[in-house]
């Protein structure tokens, strides 16, 4: 069974700070959707930054990560590149992740750009998910402008997945969407997690969302009286 296990995770923002996460233990199974909820400032984004390997330079991070049976002991206070290279994030403001004036196909091709774009023709190979069709994103020559909010969100997700990914993080993917579009995006994510065997973790403030779709897979981050955060399933 493919899974991501975070074990004995200790994190503080700098040497002299009190612990932020103390001996945290969380497990994520592939093929499922996980929701993370908690008050503003409680550490949802900090948790994401641990997985992305983008914690502040002075931060102290120790623990063990197991990704699909392979064990990684955290060194140098950051997650190994072998894990972070499989983590992709879709931010809340998806308009920053897509080019509205260009077509769906061009957007998908652009997601393949290397760190330093070269003087070689832009790739024509794109990874299309078979389930895209079910959500009305199959007319590749349409400009992105014409898509609905939910469809744009789905496009941004597919763009993030153009390079190999095992873990997908989403920050409030449904905050700007109406009920119908929210349902569409969550349906899409559920199918996507299954077909691609992905671990999908979603930050949300929407209580209704977690009660409707995430009964068994909602993590709550909370602070105790000393400010140490606990992560509970």
């Amino acid at each position: 069974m493919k899974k991501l296990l975070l074990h004995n995770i200790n994190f503080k923002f700098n040497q002299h700070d009190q612990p932020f996460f103390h001996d945290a233990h969380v497990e994520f199974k592939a093929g499922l959707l996980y929701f993370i909820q908690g008050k503003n400032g409680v550490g949802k984004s900090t948790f994401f930054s641990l997985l992305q390997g983008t914690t502040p330079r002075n931060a102290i991070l120790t623990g063990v990560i197991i990704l699909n049976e392979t064990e990684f002991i955290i060194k140098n206070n950051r997650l190994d590149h072998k894990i972070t290279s499989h983590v992709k994030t879709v931010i809340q403001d998806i308009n920053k992740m897509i080019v509205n004036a260009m077509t769906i196909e061009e957007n998908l091709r652009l997601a393949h750009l290397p760190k330093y774009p070269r003087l070689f023709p832009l790739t024509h190979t794109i990874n299309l998910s078979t389930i895209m069709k079910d959500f009305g994103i199959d007319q590749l020559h349409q400009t992105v402008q014409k898509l609905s909010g939910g469809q744009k969100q789905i496009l941004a997700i597919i763009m993030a997945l153009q390079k190999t990914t095992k873990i997908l993080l989403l920050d409030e993917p449904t905050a700007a969407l109406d009920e119908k579009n929210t349902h569409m995006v969550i349906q899409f994510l559920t199918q996507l997690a299954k077909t691609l065997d992905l671990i999908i973790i979603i930050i949300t403030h929407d209580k209704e969302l977690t009660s409707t779709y995430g009964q068994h897979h909602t993590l709550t981050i909370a602070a105790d009286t000393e400010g140490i955060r606990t992560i509970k399933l």
Partner: protein
Amino acid sequence: MSEIIFIIMEQAFLHFPLILGTYLSVSLMKIPDLSVESAYMFGAFMASSALPFTQNMPHCASLCVISLISMLAGACVGLTSGLLTQKAGIPHLLSSIITIGLFHGINQFIAGVYIPLSKYTNILALDLIPLHPDLPLLALLFIILSLAACYFFKTELGYSLAVFGHNPHFFTHYQISTSYIFLSGILLANALAGLSGYLFAQSNGFADLNMGFGKLLLCITSLILAKVFYQKTLSIITPIIGTFSYFTLQQLLLKLGFDLRYFTMIQAMVIVIILICQYRNQEHNHIDHLGV
């Protein structure tokens, strides 16, 4: 009549690299890149200063060396304004104004304020067309540049420049270097401006400290004119249409008896008229911050 066509072609070919350069930086990347005026002048001066040293070279070699020098000089100006923006955090409009000031001084220090080129062999000249000896080589350069740009617009970097104009935040989310794309675009645009500056100096027989003045207005007029006829982005057709329509308009106005002294004003008026028409037309109600 054929004379006026020759003049339009010559002027268009001389300015085409400059307009192509501003198409990259201003139209595609949406950067207010004023420093092209400085790059145009500096390219002309550096190439003109190097001209005496290439007099004994074979014609082809000297042409390549001089063109390369003019492009490198232009790129230097671009690098300065680009680094000021990227590494010192100065907004690009301000950093390009600073760059113009810097190179106004640097140029006077290295090369002076005026370089006459009449005593050197004109390396652009081929005696094929009487009265227009520069035209064949300029036409060849125009074709080479057009083909190169045509290919460039299909490449990763070409697309990246257009994406930068639409959404400069795009790259960070895909682990692509934004500053690399920014600098590449600015370097290319200014290198092309430098080349154009040299062509103009060689064709007119002198390089002058104020030769860059007003060139950005010329480019913007061309590109806005082009947008009236052709709306597709990321296409070599836009700068070509822009260049030719601008110089056709200029020559027609001259033919009608307009005084060339007032031409800058006419340019400004052309831009204003087109932009007002676009603004009134509901479909084009969202003119971006550079108008092109």
